[in-house]
């Protein structure tokens, strides 16, 4: 059943291409219907999933001579991310409701992207996984290059090149795996169970594959594609890019690199500075990413770049959580994948759709005097909630994820955990700064609404307060050019906010599928008795 998430999305893309050119509304509705259908399957399966075991969905030989199979399966981690993809897919379409330029192609590429993302999360044959992973790059490139803004060709090309470099590294790793295992298969469960790679092999294969995937996860210093790509992309594409595609990288790191080559994380025989294993190296890079991303976000004047760099910072948490190699840390990393997927989508939706499409600027100093908190209060409220959730306020998904990662990191790398604390504080400041500058700066330019001007005055007998005319707050607002927030936008924002709060208040919803997955035989090598 779960496999249908992939087929339905591809089918939707095909049907969209066959639609007549003029029918933009029809294209939107069709896209939404197919996205909802895919998500519905994802959601029902997620809530039906009880056992915690890896379950196979489809298994047929594909290229028998090479032992390649068409193997779709899922465990708790895949399910969590499939659920995320489903939710982001629906909201992405809701936030793209205003696309007028080549609408049907836009949604066709969109559904193609969604379908292949489902494919990556469900593939347990490494070759199949790689195929889906490569398909993702194509719609991603066109979505940015055709519908993007600000230096879109540059952004699209940079993103595509980085992705291809990462893929090339992964491919080399996979071929080496195929040859070295001698099992004539690329099925992940079989490789984990039966292949005994030598420690020397794992020691170079692990970093190769890990970095290959981590490029897409925004690992510092290979993150530079991310901010430019996010900024250039149209809203729905930035939502998918930050919300889902970056998770593909993190998922690949965990699912392929770490599961296949656990010994690659073992200590080296010698120390290099204070680093003694690949684990230390990547944890350090992750922490640098957290702090660097936050500090760069602090000084951006382009609103979308703030969010772009915040994604780099938040993805650092995921990579750090993976490197803790304890159950709390890795569970936290998976929850952070989900949480950041939801929140980054929401933030990009606010910035790209709600603000940029109305004001046609993303420059924070220019946005300030527009007094957006009065003009589009819903956008301001959404950004406040999303920002708070992102900075790790309790009650939202970000807090649970960061708390678990922090606890895990403290056990594994106490020194780095302190640096992460610093990153979190910078994170609070940049969200605050962006919120203040984008939505509330205009508010400070005029006198108090209650304090001096709007207070009722008494006259005559004083029993009948006389209200002064309301202050003209909107003098600076682009009145007349600013359509109100539409229903699809409201619906999308509410879906995402509710998801974040639900996970924040009841993280067990995700943990109950993640924990058994981490305790499954797939992760035996990684556990190594450590947790």
């Amino acid at each position, binding site marked *: 059943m779960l496999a249908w998430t992939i087929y339905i999305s591809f089918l939707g893309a095909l049907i969209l291409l066959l639609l007549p050119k003029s029918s933009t509304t029809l294209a939107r509705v069709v896209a939404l219907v197919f996205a909802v259908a895919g998500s519905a399957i994802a959601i029902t399966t997620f809530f039906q999933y009880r056992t915690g075991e890896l379950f196979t969905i489809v298994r047929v030989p594909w290229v028998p001579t090479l032992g390649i199979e068409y193997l779709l399966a899922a465990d708790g981690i895949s399910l969590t991310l499939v659920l995320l993809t489903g939710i982001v897919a629906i909201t992405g379409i809701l936030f793209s409701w205003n696309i007028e330029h080549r609408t049907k192609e836009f949604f066709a590429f969109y559904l193609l992207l969604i379908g292949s993302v489902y494919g990556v999360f469900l593939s347990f044959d490494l070759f199949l996984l790689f195929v889906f992973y490569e398909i993702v790059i194509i719609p991603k490139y066109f979505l940015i290059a055709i519908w993007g803004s600000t230096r879109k060709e540059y952004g699209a090309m940079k993103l595509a090149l980085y992705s291809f470099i990462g893929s090339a590294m992964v491919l080399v790793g996979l071929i080496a795996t195929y040859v070295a295992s001698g099992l004539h298969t690329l099925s992940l469960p079989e490789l984990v169970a039966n292949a005994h790679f030598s420690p020397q092999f794992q020691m170079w294969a692990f970093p190769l594959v890990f970095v290959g995937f981590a490029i897409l996860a925004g690992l510092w210093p290979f993150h530079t594609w991310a901010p430019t790509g996010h900024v250039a992309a149209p809203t729905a594409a930035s939502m998918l890019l930050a919300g889902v595609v970056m998770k593909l990288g993190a998922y690949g790191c965990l699912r392929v690199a770490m599961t296949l080559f656990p010994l690659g994380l073992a200590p080296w025989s010698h120390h290099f500075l204070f680093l003694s294993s690949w684990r230390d190296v990547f944890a350090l890079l992750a922490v640098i990413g957290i702090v660097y991303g936050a500090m760069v976000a602090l000084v951006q004047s382009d609103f979308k770049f703030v969010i772009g760099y915040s994604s780099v910072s938040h993805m650092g948490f995921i990579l750090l959580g993976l490197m803790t190699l304890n159950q709390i840390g890795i569970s936290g990393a998976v929850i952070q994948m989900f949480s950041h997927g939801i929140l980054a989508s929401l933030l990009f939706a606010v910035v790209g759709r709600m603000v940029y499409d109305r004001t046609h600027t993303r420059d924070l100093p220019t946005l300030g005097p527009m007094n957006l908190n009065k003009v589009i209060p819903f956008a301001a409220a959404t950004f406040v909630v999303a920002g708070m959730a992102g900075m790790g306020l309790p009650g939202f998904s970000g807090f649970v994820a960061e708390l678990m990662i922090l606890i895990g990191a403290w056990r594994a790398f106490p020194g780095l955990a302190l640096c992460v604390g610093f990153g979190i504080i910078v994170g609070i400041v940049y969200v605050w700064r962006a919120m203040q500058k984008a939505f509330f700066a205009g508010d400070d330019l005029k006198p*108090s609404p209650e304090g001096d001007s709007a207070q009722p005055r008494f006259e005559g007998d004083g029993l009948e307060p006389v209200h002064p005319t309301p202050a003209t707050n909107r003098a600076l607002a682009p009145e007349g050019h600013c359509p109100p927030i539409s229903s699809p936008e409201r619906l999308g924002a509410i879906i995402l906010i509710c998801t974040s709060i639900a996970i924040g208040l009841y993280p067990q919803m995700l943990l109950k599928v993640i924990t058994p997955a981490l305790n499954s035989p797939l992760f035996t090598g990684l556990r190594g008795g450590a947790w």
Partner: protein
Amino acid sequence: MPVPWLTILTLLPVAGAVIVRLTGRNGRTTRAVALAFSLAALLLTLFLAGHFDKTTAALQFPERHAWIPALNIDYRLGVDGLGLLMLLLSAIVVPIAMAASWKIESRTRLYFALILLLQSCLFGTFTALNFVHWFTFWELSLIPAFFLIKLWGGPKRSPAATQFLVYTMVGSVAMLLSFLAIFLATHNFDFIELAQLAQTNTLMPVVISTLGGYHFLPHNLALFIFLGALLGFAVKVPLIPFHTWLPAAYTEAPTGATILLTGAMSKMGLYGFLRILLPIFFPQMQAVLTPLLWLAVATVVLSAYAALAQRDLKRIFAYSSINHLGYCLLAIFAVAKFTGGDPGLTTQKFAAMNGIMLQMFNHGLTAAAIFWFIALIEQRSNGLRTLDDFGGLRKVAPVFSGLMGIALFSSLGLPGLNGFISEFLIFKGSFPLVTWATSISVLGLMLTAVVILGVIQNVFSGPLDSRWFTFPDLTTGERLALAPIIALMFALGLYPQLILSFINSTSTSLIQHLSF
């Protein structure tokens, strides 16, 4: 299955907030719906008080469910006398804050929804018994408070709101780090269980043996963990020198929000002292008791002295709030001074402990009432509220002056009114325990008397300014709304047992916890 009363109580204002947001643009409906919900919460709290077993210090109306098993976090609720008292106070203060905000005309729905959300956070904070759960509400309460100041405040609201948020946030982060350290060692976030560990003197040794191996951590780790937790509460109450956010925030906030800040939110800090710091960290608190006592004395005396220098009524009572809560801090540190079961000291500690809790309630009630009167003055004077603007109001508004005078005298600590009993108990209990500190603090009492008499003189007596010839007296509606509060002040002043009966057992058990 027993009815989850506390969960219902916490969620009731949230439901109210949602419904308030859905009301139409008519401000009247919005206010009525919001007030109805706050009164419903008050009724529910009174109902709980009626079913509260006063003879035991056990946690009542308990709820406990597994919540995040991976982190050993339970959804655990319960109230003892202290918790119930705070619920009552919050439930009383919120309708007062709404009444004082009756004239808010801009974005009415959002304003009242935020007040209801804040109430929910207050209820959550006073009932949660697990750190993560409690911290969630503690932090979330900042958001409505921040926006109440930021969107409806006075001319300098923006810096005031930011300062308020940054101070509290820094305190919270320090506290979070401390509790994370404890969690890493004990794998436990439960206040009650941590307090038991502390009582058997196993908590800090476990923490030190687990975390002590990290050479970059300070040598006296236990003390630093305590100081981190202390910072969070010290900012909230506040303890001098962490108070500097307060005058700006209280002054710039719309008066309804000021009522919430001083009446209820400052009690979150004191509640934390009693529920968390004292039971879990008392050995560390004892280690730095002398400096803490000095800070408490400074809080009491300097804030009263600062109030003396102010002309703005809101600023005067902002500093006066710091002074009144300083007495509580003084008594808390006094109680922490001696452990051991010396019966003579136990009596003193018991008096002081009862005094603290009573003072928390009384200050909340009195301060809320005084700020309400200030809001009424502002409404009548088009926002003017400095001492120099007024004079002789007694002649044109006798009822107003009389009732506000009662509230002011209650704040001053006049016998027969509620403020007297609690301050008396605090001084009676603290004096034998920490004689020097209590003696110096008496200075604060005297300065407060000067401040309040000064206010009465400047506002109500003297020549009447021509601007205020038509200053309207209290309307019938306002009189009816104020009457129960004034009556409660008298009732508590004459019959403090009304509240004391709820907290006696809790005080006894807290003191027993500290005697080993």
